[in-house]
């Protein structure tokens, strides 16, 4: 087993109008358990500002579906106000959880690949409004090695943590164990190979989690339906999974179980 995974911070990319206090609380709780801070990143979309400078630019507003001319000054003011409000909400959530936080406002592309680095957990939230396309994890420009997927209907934060173990899933196991230990809660280890599962359970016990709180489960394959089936009755509060192999199914797991999924790139963090 390699050394502890270096997790620097949770980077929360905030969009105008995307503030959800429940989501912020969930993120702050995770930061508390991992003993890391939260970095709020608010991006003023450069493309939008360029558009607003065009004389014929206008927007259709929701939910009224009426059209309004886009005024660059008004847009800038709205973005500033959004940033201020999101910062306030982040401050409140972080303060309640007792974790540090910072906030940064940038102008540029919303993806801002260059701002994320190794050890950052980037947050992806299931869009509530259909028009927003889902984040394509594989093709994304983020260089972060950890990603937290939060479903729209996330359940209350209680219960054990689950780790989906693949061969060489040291980072997944290490982070899941760390969370279970910090929360003084149980750990579910789900593996395709029982032998691997037993080995990982031994490692988890070495971190200080009582054997009685470690639950092992075997699944036929690491496909999303099997993971969902394996965890449905165990009610985990969060699932930790390796990023490269299972990312395509990650959203399915998160949405079906109604729990956040933390994706970890082995060797990346």
């Amino acid at each position, binding site marked *: 087993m390699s050394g502890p995974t270096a997790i620097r911070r949770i980077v929360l990319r905030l*969009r*105008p*109008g995307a503030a959800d206090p429940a989501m912020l609380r969930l993120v702050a709780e995770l930061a508390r358990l991992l003993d890391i801070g939260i970095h709020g990143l608010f991006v003023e*979309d*450069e*493309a*939008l500002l*360029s*558009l607003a*400078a*065009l004389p*014929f*630019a*206008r*927007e*259709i*507003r*929701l*939910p009224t*579906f009426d*059209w*309004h001319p*886009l005024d660059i000054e008004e*847009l800038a003011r*709205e*973005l500033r106000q*959004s940033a201020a409000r999101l910062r306030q909400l982040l401050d409140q959530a972080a303060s309640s959880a007792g974790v540090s936080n910072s906030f940064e406002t940038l102008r540029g592309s919303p993806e801002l690949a260059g701002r994320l680095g190794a050890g950052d957990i980037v947050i992806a939230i299931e869009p509530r*409004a*259909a*028009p*927003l*396309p*889902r984040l394509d994890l594989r093709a994304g420009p983020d260089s972060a090695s950890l990603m937290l997927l939060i479903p729209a*209907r996330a*359940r*209350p934060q209680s219960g054990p943590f689950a780790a989906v173990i693949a061969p060489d899933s040291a980072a997944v196991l290490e982070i899941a164990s760390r969370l279970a230990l910090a929360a003084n809660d149980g750990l579910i280890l789900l593996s395709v190979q029982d032998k691997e599962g037993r080995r990982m359970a031994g490692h988890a016990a070495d971190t200080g989690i009582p054997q009685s709180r470690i639950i092992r489960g075997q699944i036929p394959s690491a496909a999303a*339906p099997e993971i*969902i*089936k394996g965890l*449905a*009755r165990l009610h985990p509060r969060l699932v930790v999974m390796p990023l490269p192999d299972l990312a395509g199914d990650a959203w*399915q797991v998160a*949405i*079906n179980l*109604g729990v956040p999924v933390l994706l970890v790139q082995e060797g990346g963090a």
Partner: protein
Amino acid sequence: MAAAGTSAGRGFPEGGGKLSAGQLYRQADLSGLAFATTAELAPLAGLEDQPRARQAIGFGAGIAQSGFNIFAIGPAGLRTQQAIKELAEATAQARKLPRDWVYVHNFAEPHRPVAIALPGRRAPAFQKAIHDLIEDLHAALPALFESEDFQKRRASLEQSIQAKTERSFAALREKAAARNIAVLRTPMGFALAPVHDGKVVEPEEFGTWPEAQQQAVREAIQTLEKELEETLRGIPRIEKEQRDALRELARKTAELAIGPPFDQVKTGFADLPEVLRHIDAIRTDLLENLGFLTAPDAAAQGPGQAAMPPGGPFERYEINILVTQADHAEGAPVIEELNPTLGNLFGRIEHFQIEGALVTNFRLIKAGALHRANGGTILLDARALLSEPFSWAALKRQEIVIEDVSRLIGLAATVSLEPDPIPLDVKIVLVGDRQLYYLLAMLDPDLARYFKVLADFDDAANRTPESEAMLARLIGGLAARAGLRPLDRSGVAAVIEYASRLAGDAHKISLLSERLSDLVAEADHIAGGEVHAAIQREDVEAAIARYIGRMSRLKEQSQEAILREIALIETSGMRVGQVNGLSVLSLGDYAFGQPSRITCTVRPGTGKIVDIEREVALGGPLHSKGVLILSGYLAGRFALNSPMSLSASLVFEQSYGGVEGDSASSAELYALLSALSGLALRQDLAVTGSVNQHGAVQAIGGVNEKIEGFFDLCAARGLTGTQGVLIPQANVQHLMLRQDVVEACAAGRFAVYPVAAIDQGIALLTGRAAGAQTDGGYPEGTVNRLVEERLKHFAAIRKEAGGETLHELGK
């Protein structure tokens, strides 16, 4: 007017007409009842002493027709109510067990909860069945919705709908991209922007484009804007489709799961159509509101963890048992409501607070006494009932309608409920006093319609050895029930004699058990101090004395005023036109007698006797009537063959309150005869009794108190042996005088004279015979002769002076 100067006792018929000591007090006769103490006597059961009332209550309680409710009137007292209750309970045993009533949620009109009747004792089973059913579903349904199968189907549904949305949006994006247009997200919505090399065109660059290219971009954006709007407008519809599809999926899934348990519950109530209808309504509502069960909060709550708290989503399925006979023995209930407010009688709707607002639901409907008594009997105090706003009017309805008083008087605008009325089938027993009953009968014509049975309790019973024995058992029962010492024979006799005194009649005994009960309680207290094993006569007499002592502050003040000659009352000597009358003052339960000086003056006039009390509006109508009768007496007795030429003034001296009643009319006549005859009246005698136009002295009330009042004054000044009281002959039977009065009379130091006619009285008071009329008129020297001569003299004066002058004199 000067005193006649005759000495007291002159011409007085010594010993003549005096009542013997035995006539002044009637002792109890317990010779027919063998017992040492009341502990040996069987307590008086029910209303043995009230046969008329007992028959009425038995009839009213037994008849089933509506309107035959009972109004029991008579002396108030716990024993009466207790006895009525016992009688009603005995009758209720034969009636069938009433139904249970529950309130349930009205799914169609939530503000109008539905009342359902079940056979007696079955409501708890209904409540438990529904509670268990919902609790089981509460646990089972979330698990069902978390099942792999359901989750798969739901996810598949969500994804297909999501994909539909994404497809429409992706198509738009592609179409736009083909025309070098990008769809951008703005803080408040969406916008379309021209792009070049994957970036939004800067304004400066756009300005360098040829006009035709700019126009083409504008046109392309305009076209796409319409499509963007259409796409966005379609999203809510797609979302709604998604919601509907998910709901339908959940409903179908749940329907399969809940069918069997619902059917099982229904089998237990197959004989009750209303119950079955409600179970079906619950099932329908559950299927329409599965969100309760699938919500994360519901799943977290879990069964058995206050799953149905007030205001919670599952509360609507609960059953509110308003009244059940589950804890009631056989027969119909008998309920006594001591505080018959509208809410206590008809039930009330309570509220609880949610975020500052008062809210309610059918579970907060609370039963009233009528709900509990429905099918049986309810006992109410009439005065208490009439003191409560709305209660009397509401009671006359034939159904139980729960109303909020604050709404009735417009004080509250809180959203409330209108529960189904419940049919009322209850026997109402009102207990009140006679005055209240007759007042109500006069003012409310509905009384006779709703209270057809009158149970009239006697205040008193004839005093016979049998009734005395019955009273002994009653007293013994009262003492035993109150945990007091038993009474020995002397104690019982003293209480019986006191009961006779309370009745104001030596031949009656009072049935005011409350007062007798109080007396025995106080006597028991005294007996405790005297270390008596049983309550004795001396304990009872001491209790009576203490009671009187507590009540006699005003009596003592009145007597003190006389003794200090502030109020002028003479108890010796003789005076013309002046007599001692007697009156009674009642203060609550206590009454005492006091003497009053009555004086009269006469002069020639037009035949008018002036009642000064009436002239100054201090005399009541009965008193005025008594005075007017005097004119009739004079006219009838002294036929002068000429108009009555008398003018007289009568007054209660030093009377500053009102005077009512005609019990002083004989005294007033004596004063008038004295003034006319010039004969002085004895001041060591006091007089009571009313008189008719023929001179017959008639019975009055409060004779014992009046005699004792004059006796106390004389005793305070020192009894001379000539003092006494003239009472109507008819009142002799009422005498139950205090022991010290009886003893004084027995020793010849005081006397009570029965008088049947004015002639007897005037002879006693003047010491001169009244005189019977003969052909030659009244005998010389008699009172009547002197009166006649004086009247003739006045007539002569009038004749000589002429009408007008005399008219002036008579004014």
